[in-house]
């Protein structure tokens, strides 16, 4: 559309855009600001927009082992647990998803489309209805209250989608490339690793980022499975602030900022991969 044709057009676009941008950003920004305010300022009316005396005290309190909130939960431990679970399950999901994705994209076998369809549909049932039976299963396996159990669970939940993203991107790579490599004497696995996978790197990155974000953010299953404070993850730590909500909101803000930080980093650096995965994933749930 010609933007100079109508004088008010540009103003209208800018106004709508600004409203949407504020709507999207304000809740996160407001939380971020709160983490630099003092407890007294947060309890004050009328509400001040900027921190009067910006302070990092809330962050210090989180990591200070003597303070009240960290006696229950140790934030360095929570962060390290979350990274362990998210990174390990991401590696598992990408490796196993690559093999399965390749099989679905390239090999012919009876039941192929049915199985792939079943995997996708299975994702849609990963909700509250599975909380109780998962708890029972993990107890039976002796994996309750362990990071290993959580890693297995997240990997199982994440695999179908990773498989699907990788399979659909492999389908777009011309099959002739591997065929000619195999003519030249490469085995199927050599052709897969040396010819096809290098071309599928963007899909592998997309799958990895998606899984990492989901695993880092997961709350429901972590909260029913993890019991000892040495095993908890950051989302559990943040949720535990619900009780001291109003009194210590600067700490809630600081903790929430810490939880959001890795996600923001992944989001801003991997922008294009994200959109790819979203649009791919959206069509099939």
């Amino acid at each position, binding site marked *: 559309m010609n933007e100079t044709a109508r004088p008010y057009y540009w103003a209208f676009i800018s106004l709508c855009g600004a409203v949407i941008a504020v709507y999207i950003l304000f809740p996160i920004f407001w939380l971020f600001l709160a983490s630099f305010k003092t407890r007294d300022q947060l309890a004050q009316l009328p509400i001040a927009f900027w921190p009067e005396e910006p302070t990092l005290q809330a962050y210090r309190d989180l990591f200070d082992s003597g303070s009240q909130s960290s006696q229950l939960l140790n934030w360095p431990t929570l962060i390290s647990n979350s990274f362990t679970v998210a990174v390990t399950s991401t590696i598992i999901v990408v490796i196993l998803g690559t093999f399965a994705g390749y099989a679905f994209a390239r090999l012919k076998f009876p039941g192929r489309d049915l199985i792939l369809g079943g995997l996708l549909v299975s994702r849609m049932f990963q909700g509250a209805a599975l909380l109780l039976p998962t708890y029972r299963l993990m107890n039976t396996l002796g994996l309750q209250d362990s990071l290993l159990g959580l890693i297995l669970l997240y990997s199982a939940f994440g695999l179908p989608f990773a498989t699907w993203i990788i399979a659909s991107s492999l389908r777009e790579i011309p099959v002739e490339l591997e065929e000619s490599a195999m003519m030249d004497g490469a085995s199927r696995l050599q052709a897969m690793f040396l010819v096809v996978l290098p071309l599928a790197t963007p899909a592998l990155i997309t799958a990895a980022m998606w899984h990492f974000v989901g695993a880092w953010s997961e709350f429901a299953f972590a909260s029913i499975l993890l019991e000892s404070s040495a095993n908890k993850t950051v989302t559990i730590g943040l949720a535990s602030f619900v009780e001291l909500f109003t009194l210590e909101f600067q700490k809630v803000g600081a903790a929430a900022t810490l939880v959001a930080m890795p996600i923001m980093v992944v989001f801003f650096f991997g922008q294009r991969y994200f959109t790819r995965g*979203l649009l791919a994933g959206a069509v099939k749930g």
Partner: protein
Amino acid sequence: MNSSSDRWLAYFMILPVVAAVLAFVIGPTWDVATLSLTQVVMGQERGFGTLGNFRALAADPMFTLVLKNTAIWILGGTVLCVLTGLAVGAFLAIDSKMTTGLRALILLPWVMPDVVTAMAWKWMLHGQVGVIGSTMQSVGLTEQQISFLGDPDLVMWTLVVVLIWRKMPLVALILCAAIRSVPNEQIEASRMDGANAFERFRFVVIPNIAFSLTAVTVISMIWITAEFALPWIMTGGGPANASQIMSTYIYQQSFEFFSWGVASAMSVVNLVMLMVIVALYLYVNRRSWASGAAS
């Protein structure tokens, strides 16, 4: 190439994924279904083959309240998500530097962890020092500061508003992509015929994106049904169960009251509801399954 060895290689390659889904999705689904037909007393199983759990669930006075709240949550949430998503998507489809930037930014709520989102909104909606209520009061919209999450009549719809912030961006982005792929000639042709902006949208754009619109509606229903952390952390189902929905009820019955019988019965109700939505989804998407499977 040897097709029989390919077949075994394929089964070997997909084995971990299939095993994972069998162990952690299909198995637990079966387990909760059988548990719902078993008499359970404080975690001890006392005999299979009873509808007692479902009777107990139906007799729980909270059951109808939970169904009503879940209907607001899923239906209200889906309709509002798709409508706002359509409006924002149509805006984002305009060619301009600003909309290009926004298309990247808008996914931020989608990637935010639910727990962070819940805390951010809980704080903004706080009954005494919340920025939303205090702003409404200071510009004269309300006499007193409204306690959005403390008022049983408001709490469900307040949660829906937060849900929209969380889920609308993806709906907007999908519909934006669909709108941008509408053939330009059709829009120009209708402009020549004298159609105004609204008529062009209603009679040219909407029919062209009808498939995406239907698919995204059903998908939103599935996402919203699965949402648990957001309502649980914001209200815990309160005040006085006014915002108790299926997912929070299942959690509370399972892990706070240890009423596994009622919890498993509600889980089965939830699964049946999901199956209906998934069947709807498969029906809507039948075209893309048929072509997608072949490609």
